């Protein structure tokens, strides 16, 4: 579906079901340089089980209009504006990687709006390798290749995708190259590198929170994810073995199972 926020078109996948204002809202926020399609193995389930399940494209990404936002704080305000634009008062947020920084900041800024927070491959800060940052800001496709290399664990490099026939390293590469690299990945990496408020923001979060971490995550290692989770009251942590940063693809089933239990318990669907 498409709608407007701050005058620009926003695209959100609804998981194959029409948007229904009566249903509780879940918003999935993708990682640096990526799009709504990274969530396809999670969103469709919720869409068919009593939720408005919206995987959004951040401004300037995927099928959304506008320009990429330059700071995590701006992105956090934008996610809040998305909730307003959809006519909802509350939502559950799910973030991956950079999307975790965005959703942590959003939840701390708008605590009354956020029912639950789910973080995948999250950390309180994501400082960027200067060379990788430079490559992305200079539109070098090598930045995407390096990101896909580091983002997949050793097992993920072999493949074995839960959806038969899909090779996810190449799929991720295509997603990250679908728009101009310096305008998406370059801007996103700089925003991540500049963001310093993650740990302070985490201390303000009071809603039920889940962190899914992966033992082979090189981009947001388990110890960083645990550090963030330790600052959030009552935060649950689930750790996946033999998995890298792209857990939502590498171990899509496991992620969905954990997410399903957490969200349906803390923010029940319409049907129940």
């Amino acid at each position, binding site marked *: 579906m498409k709608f407007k926020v701050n005058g620009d078109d926003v695209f959100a996948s609804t998981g*194959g079901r029409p948007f229904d204002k009566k249903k509780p809202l879940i918003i999935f926020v993708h990682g640096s340089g990526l799009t709504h399609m990274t969530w396809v*193995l999670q969103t469709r389930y919720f869409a068919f089980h009593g939720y408005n399940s919206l995987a959004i494209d951040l401004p300037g990404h995927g099928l959304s209009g506008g320009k990429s936002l330059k700071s995590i704080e701006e992105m956090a305000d934008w996610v809040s504006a998305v909730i307003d634009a959809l006519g909802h008062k509350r939502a559950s947020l799910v973030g991956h990687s950079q999307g975790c920084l965005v959703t942590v900041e959003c939840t701390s800024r708008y605590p009354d709006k956020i029912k639950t927070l789910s973080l995948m491959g999250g950390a309180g800060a994501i400082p960027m390798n200067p060379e990788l940052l430079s490559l992305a800001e200079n539109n070098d496709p090598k930045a995407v290749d390096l990101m896909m290399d580091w983002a997949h664990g050793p*097992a993920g490099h072999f*493949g074995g995708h*839960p959806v*038969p*026939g899909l090779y996810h390293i*190449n799929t991720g590469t*295509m997603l990250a190259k679908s728009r101009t690299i310096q305008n998406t990945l370059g801007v996103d990496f700089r925003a991540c590198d500049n963001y310093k408020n993650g740990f302070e923001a985490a201390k303000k979060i009071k809603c039920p929170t889940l962190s899914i971490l992966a033992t082979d995550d090189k981009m947001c290692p388990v110890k960083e994810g645990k550090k963030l989770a330790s600052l959030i009251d009552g935060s649950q942590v689930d750790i996946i073995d033999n998995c890298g940063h792209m857990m939502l693809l590498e171990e899509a089933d496991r992620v969905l199972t954990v997410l399903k239990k957490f969200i349906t318990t803390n923010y029940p669907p319409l049907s129940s």
Partner: protein
Amino acid sequence: MSDKKKELKPNTYKFDTLSLHAGYQPHKNAGARQVPIYQTTSYLFDDVDHAAALFNLERGGHIYSRISNPTVGVLEERVASLEGGTAALATSSGMSAIFLTIMTLCEAGDHLVVSSQLYGGTVNLFRLTLPKFGITCTFVKPRDTEGFKKAIKKNTKGIYGELVGNPGNELMNMPEIANIAHEAGIPLIVDSTYQTPYLCKPFEHGADIVIHSLTKWMAGHGSSMAGILVEGGNFDWMQNDKFPTMTKPYEGYHGLSFAEEFGPTAFTMKARAEGMRDFGPCLSPQNAWNVLQGLETLSVRMKKHCENAEEMVKYLSKHESVAWVSHPSAPNHPDSALADKLLPNGKGSMIAFGIKGGKDAGVAFINNVKLASHLANVGDTRTLVIHPASGTHSQMDEATLKFAGLSHDMIRLSVGMEDIDDIKNDFEIGFRAARKPRLVSNQ
């Protein structure tokens, strides 16, 4: 110690490693080092909710082996990785991969622009069978790049061709034809059976969908039928309104838009969800496993095939019984510069040559070689020969044969991996027999 900073380099696996490992994790398969053959029709559901989720594409997994199978899935992922594609769908043969691709792309009333130099069975599909489904085609000679552009109509949904045409070895200018297709907002579909991804990766030259008859060099041992379609992931189905079945809500899956939901893998997802469900040309797990064995040695075999082929080109070019030789490695081949660009790792092992004495000499040659096998296949480890005008392309009329670049003196040679001296010695026997009728008639 050096102060030089180490350059960042991606360490994703390279071709030879992917051909052995991609798509498979032993620790998820009881530690089995070799890919297991999942000889089963169907798969247990955890509960009703799990079953519904699988049927509704809410989560990945297997339901029924017509739609997907774990052994076949390894093959699909492996070929996708080798081609640099996002996804792949294996089928029971190369022809069913072509048919499934066209039926996923087109509806009744649609049109395709097609290279005229194709395998005879493919020509018949486009010329005779697809019109029965309301899909028409315009054939263009592979070297007539502008002709592809001129043939595009309002209802054209794609351009289709073999990079190196069968059997005449004419090359189509893939990068330029890809530009023509993309300017018209339609995909380029390339049958890359002759090349395998070891010799050419069509996605790097603008192709959007790649098709293989895996029966040939990919499996390589003449044992198993199989085909595959691979998606490049770069084509934007939503750029225009030409592909409503990709972009509009699909009734068969509760209003799903494949392009919106699956983006760079949308075509494969639709081909599987709709095409395998409705047509069902599924690959058997045993044949998938056989192809996987072949893929493990793909680069080793292709090197040897190409090496032997280039030796045979030299031998045939100098032979008194040979009127002409066509192979992209020959310096006088009209497309040799393009072949150098598109086929840097070797020009393939398919040779077409004309035998002096025409059809009768061709028949005598074919009937007398002993090592080379006379059969309707290519890409075996063994050397194969056929006379296309009386074999693979025999269902074509005279005009179609001419348009497809075939002549009655043409022998199609698929060079195998035998000792090169043994192949040459065998050909000498064939050539002697081919000369005999003429010698007799001259006396």
